[in-house]
């Protein structure tokens, strides 16, 4: 009896040791085949622009192909679900803007658990942008906008890239915090929205594709939705500076593994991303698309994600934002 138990436990521990050895060998040699980065949107969008330089740099750094796989559709849910259901072997990752993980789950049923289905790896790029207004409206500063919107309730309209996108949430937050009445006009993507902002059909937006027009003097940017000022627009204040603390939340992009991926692989990938993000070349490339990469550990990314989810859920509830 004792003997049998002993044998069993020996056998069990041998198996465990073997598994561990195999697993650690797997971890040590990672990556020894191409790695797939699933991006839940069509090519050409802002997440694609951020994901592709990263795929290129990681390919150089690890000597294995990091392949961008665009799986667009259903507000990003199709690609995100695909990663949630992928094998946690360190060869499939999700590269996504925060919509899919911290906004959509508070608005509708999603086919994955934004927290339990994934293990965060790193932040890839925050979009550096602010609220942009058409010059014909009148306000030239953030304070003037608030003043104008209070005096003319319901007169202004803003365009977003679609329902449940961060471009909608940021303006809803402004409306809620400042008590403004501004009409939401959803578009299919921020390009369409910009097309109606330029002739003043809608008056407000919040997206990086406006920035070239701001530089050309066709549109006015009023502030920066980020904790720090934008190096190219040093005069524009952050929302905290404007008296709205806790509102400086950018649209952020990150990379996540399916839950259960060996933590060693996640740590290895995170370390490499942080190392690359510090290089002048990557900083310059991110800056050229109006993005910046915060350096965070996987645990910090997880905490940031939970906090952002909570903040968005609170806003969605108190501002009564719904997908009808």
């Amino acid at each position, binding site marked *: 009896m004792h003997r049998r138990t002993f044998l069993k436990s020996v056998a069990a521990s041998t198996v465990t040791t073997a598994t561990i050895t195999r697993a650690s060998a797997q971890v040590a040699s990672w990556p020894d085949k191409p790695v797939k980065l699933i991006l839940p949107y*069509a*090519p*050409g*969008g802002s997440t*694609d*622009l951020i994901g*592709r*330089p990263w*795929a*290129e740099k990681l390919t150089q750094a690890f000597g294995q192909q990091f392949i*961008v*796989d*665009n*799986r*667009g*559709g*259903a*507000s990003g*849910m*199709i690609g995100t*679900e695909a990663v949630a259901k992928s094998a946690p072997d360190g060869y499939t990752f999700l590269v996504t803007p925060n919509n899919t993980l911290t906004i959509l789950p508070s*608005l*509708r049923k999603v*086919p994955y658990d934004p927290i339990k289905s994934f293990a965060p790896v790193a932040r890839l790029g925050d979009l550096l942008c602010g609220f942009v207004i058409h010059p014909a409206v009148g306000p030239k500063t953030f304070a003037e906008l608030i003043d104008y919107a209070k005096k003319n309730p*319901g007169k202004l*309209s803003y365009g977003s890239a*679609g*329902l*449940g996108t961060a471009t909608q949430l940021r303006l809803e937050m402004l409306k809620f915090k400042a008590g403004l009445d501004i*009409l939401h*006009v*959803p*578009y*299919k*993507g921020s*390009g*369409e929205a*910009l*097309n*109606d902002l*330029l*002739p003043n*059909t*809608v008056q407000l937006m919040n997206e990086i*594709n406006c*920035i*070239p*027009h701001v*530089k*050309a003097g*066709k549109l006015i940017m009023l502030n920066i939705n980020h904790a720090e000022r934008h190096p190219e627009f040093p005069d524009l204040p952050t929302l905290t500076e404007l008296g709205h603390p806790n509102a400086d939340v950018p649209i952020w992009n990150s990379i996540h593994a399916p839950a259960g991926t060996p933590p060693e692989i996640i740590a290895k990938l995170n370390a490499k991303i942080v190392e690359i993000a510090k290089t002048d070349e990557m900083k310059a*490339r991110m800056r*050229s*698309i109006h993005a910046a990469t915060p350096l965070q550990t996987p645990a910090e990314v997880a905490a940031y994600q939970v906090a952002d989810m909570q903040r968005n859920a609170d806003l969605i509830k108190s501002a009564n934002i719904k*997908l*009808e």
Partner: protein
Amino acid sequence: MELSGLISNLALGFSVAVSLQNLIWCLAGALIGTAIGVLPGIGPVATMALLLPATYALPADGALIMLAGIYYGAQYGGSTTAILVNLPGESSSVVTCLDGYQMARQGRAGSALAIAALGSFFAGSVATVAIAVAAPPLTKLAQQFQPADYFSLMVLGLVASIVLAHGSVIKALGMIFLGMLLGLVGTDVNTGNARYTFEIGELFDGIGFVPLTMGLFGIAEIIANLTNAERRDLVSSKVSSLWPSRDELKRSVAPVLRGTVLGGLLGILPGGGAVLASFSSYTLEKKISKTPEKFGTGMVEGVAGPESANNAAAQTSFIPMLTLGIPSNAVMAMMIGGMMMHGIAPGPQVMQQRPELFWGMIASMWIGNLMLVVLNLPLIGIWVRLLLVPYRLLSIAILFFCCIGVYSLNNSANEVLFIAVFGLLGYVLMRLGCEPAPLIMGFLLGPMMETYMRRAMLLARGDANVFIERPLSLAFLVLTGLLLLFIVLPSVGRAREVAFKE
């Protein structure tokens, strides 16, 4: 713009475009574009997405010249399959199927292909000049269009699609409505509601254009051909002259000119403009023809006009992208992605800050079009010989490429099932005498019409008068009314019935 300025700008452009490297990239793009245009289902968007990372290693002008080449190359290639095997490669070649395929069945495939290539070249050249001369004012014109105006334009377009059919008006109307219903599948932009999606992930963004047209046109045609030996032989045995006759060339001149103007104007409207171009041209040709009843039976005007229009629109759809950084379709979104990867922020400043890039691209468009016509005319002989392949083999090859093409769009097996379903539907509709072209127009325009109507109402704070207060919108609605009157009036209706019953 001053003439001397224009000439010096174009000289700068050509100096960039004719460098040996850029000529090679231009040729590479045009070749790849033609190839993917000919393969059903594999479109320029998927190809450009695959090639985007590779272009990072190229200089910015070379990369953009190649990407642009893929796009207009695909326009040439797409009409090839439409004419030869009734498979529209892109939304713009749907109407080419109507008369182009009939011409092929009468052994005049070579002539249809040649007319399509020459018409496209002419339209492409004119539209390139239009971009060079008038990009900024044309941009301003496009920006006059507000959601209410788009809505009324779509209404006019939908009513006009009745003309696409050459059978009964009632059936055409039915097809338009069926198309609109199919177009409503997917997530509603304004409320986020899922409509008729049955929890199938692939349907959340609506039914894809490619599976729908592939099934309704291509697969249904294969089924029909395989069930009928006589019909089948018609496709594969008769191949007469490869070149258009003098008469066909003469009949094509006016439609090409009209198609170029129409396509060039509609192409600058972001969203939907390019779709409207080719079929507006078809509608126009049929309306002013002395023999409208012959349209749909292999009229060369029905190929020349729309093919010129879609190529002109393909060129002018670059205008909003180049001058404003706004993509008018998915391909232009890819071009913007390509620019941003090279650190160029698309927008109004590109023309001033990177004149060599802006004018180089424009010059390369003309060179690319020239290359395409030189490339495609000798190829016609080869394409036409494809029809000599026994149909039992050809049909399997077409099915094979359709499946691969559809699968490659989204890596989704469900979409391959969709083409099977739409293929059967297409065959049933064919037996019922219902034509698929009006259905496709309903499918494309219906959802856009809904989006623009709701957006216009939202912006007008619920005031429906916006549609008649805006002059542009009112003008389109009045035109729609006149067209409806023309179709509905009993005497005209009777005349039409007689005319269209052959």
